């Protein structure tokens, strides 16, 4: 009888303890990152899909279509085509097709490339209504990006010193940044 009463008392006490703990949390600040209004800065090593790296000198892709990455990829997501352009010493890439829907973000390709011609992008929030959107031609992407930049800057791209790590696009209005804790 006594032990039963004691058990009830201890049990009741444990319930009170639990409720006290949750109430304590109730009054604490929320830990939520309000995503579309604020977003994380991806860490430098964040692995999004891969993207081609621009040669800061020329503004063109460094890649010369050696296909090492293509071979290293376990999921066969990369198809690189290259051609030797007139007057160029090396081959240069003409299509760099990435089927991101098969990629496992393993990094084999980036490690395989000896020239650092590809790297991981920081696109972490892709979503689309069609899956074709993720079979992308990285080369074209790079080119359009370059053209856009040229248009924006109003200068030939070659003169623009492009940082290897491009500055972030302007955050949308009202958007705050939260650093990785």
């Amino acid at each position, binding site marked *: 009888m006594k032990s039963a009463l004691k058990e009830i008392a201890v*049990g009741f006490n*444990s319930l009170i303890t639990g409720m006290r*703990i949750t109430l304590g949390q109730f009054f604490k600040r929320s830990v939520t990152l309000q995503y579309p209004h604020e977003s994380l800065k991806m860490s430098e*090593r964040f692995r999004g899909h891969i993207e081609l790296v621009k040669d800061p000198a020329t503004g063109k892709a460094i890649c010369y279509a050696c296909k090492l990455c293509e071979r290293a990829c376990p999921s066969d997501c990369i198809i690189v085509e290259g051609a030797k352009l007139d007057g160029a010493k090396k081959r240069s890439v003409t299509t760099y097709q990435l089927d991101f829907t098969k990629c496992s973000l*393993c990094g084999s390709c980036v490690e395989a490339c000896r020239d650092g011609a590809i790297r991981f992008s920081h696109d972490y929030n892709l979503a689309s209504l069609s899956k074709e959107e993720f079979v992308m031609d990285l080369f074209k992407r790079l080119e359009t990006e370059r053209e856009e930049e040229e248009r924006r800057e109003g200068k030939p791209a070659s003169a623009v010193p492009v940082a290897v790590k491009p500055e972030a696009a302007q955050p949308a209005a009202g958007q705050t940044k939260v650093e990785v804790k």
Partner: protein
Amino acid sequence: MTEKADFLTGDVAAGQPPRETFVLNLGPQHPATHGVLRVKMTMDGEYIVRAEPVCGYIHRMQEKMGENRTYAQFLPNTSRIDYLSAMTYTHAFVGAVERAAKIPVPPRAEYIRVITSELNRISSHLVWWGAFLLDLGGFTPLLYAFDDREKILDLLEAITGARLTYCYYRFGGLCNDVDDSFIKGTREFVAHMRPRLKMYRGLVTENIIFRKRLEGIGPISQEMCRKYGATGPVIRGSGVSYDVRRVEPYSAYPEFDFEIPTFPGGDSMARYLVRMEEMVQSLRIIEQALDKLPAGPVMADKVPRVLKLPAGDYCYAVEAARGRFAVRIVSDNKEIPYRVKLRTPSLSNLSLFEEASKGMLLPDALALMGSLDLVIPDIDR
């Protein structure tokens, strides 16, 4: 469907009325099975006559894939077998390859492997803890656990670039070194986690409802663990101090002082306590490893770009969050392995469920299943 009809109707032939049992299907889409396990339960009212797990709903050909891609290409797959403790799984695979190819791993790399593995173990246990509580109907602990887990993920993402499927270890070391902010962050995390664990104790471990649901429920004997090859917290919850980190020490583990928590109860509570205690021990290991972290490279010097292992078979076992994970590579001296066998802890741990759950009540059996900490792709591979 190979339905064994005799269970319901078989006796009719013998002139006896059918039994009062019915078949209850849990899964593949069931909140309690954490993924796509299916448990076919023959029930007698609330009592389980036979609970037969049906696996394979997420069989992903991991072993087949091992046979058709190079060692380096297979590496990312290892983090998708048990995605909750991806580091340790990668560890086993790189360990096996390193063992076979005799690649020496620099000590700094081993230390960082230990740190990240233990962080990963904590995050895995946290997910288990939350999900287990979710099984028992408590939702809030899950979110607390995920909140703490996010801190680990932030740390690991900063060095590996991924939150879950880290592909961080390489044959001969790591793909990149850690920086000071990681070390600082890890120390902060350790300091943060200790009081949190205390809070967990107050919120859950001592809770009377919780204790009533676990204490004495779902006993698994030592003998049963041995017969079924159960490892990890399951066997330690039965009082056997079996831990690969102790019995077959690997990596830098011999250099740390830590305990193998065991509880003799064999019930769900014992398994629960083992995991809670393991988190404490993991914190200890991390702290020690951070203190002793040697300088130096994180990658072995000469790792051949194209790996070919000498013919033969090689094993490597690690203590993953769920128990003993072993890789067996059979090589015929080619670029791609001849056979890769993945011995996963969840498979063995679950295989005892059928026997352990006989005659139990449904909710108790599900608590037992939760306490086994299953990751279904780890069973199905």
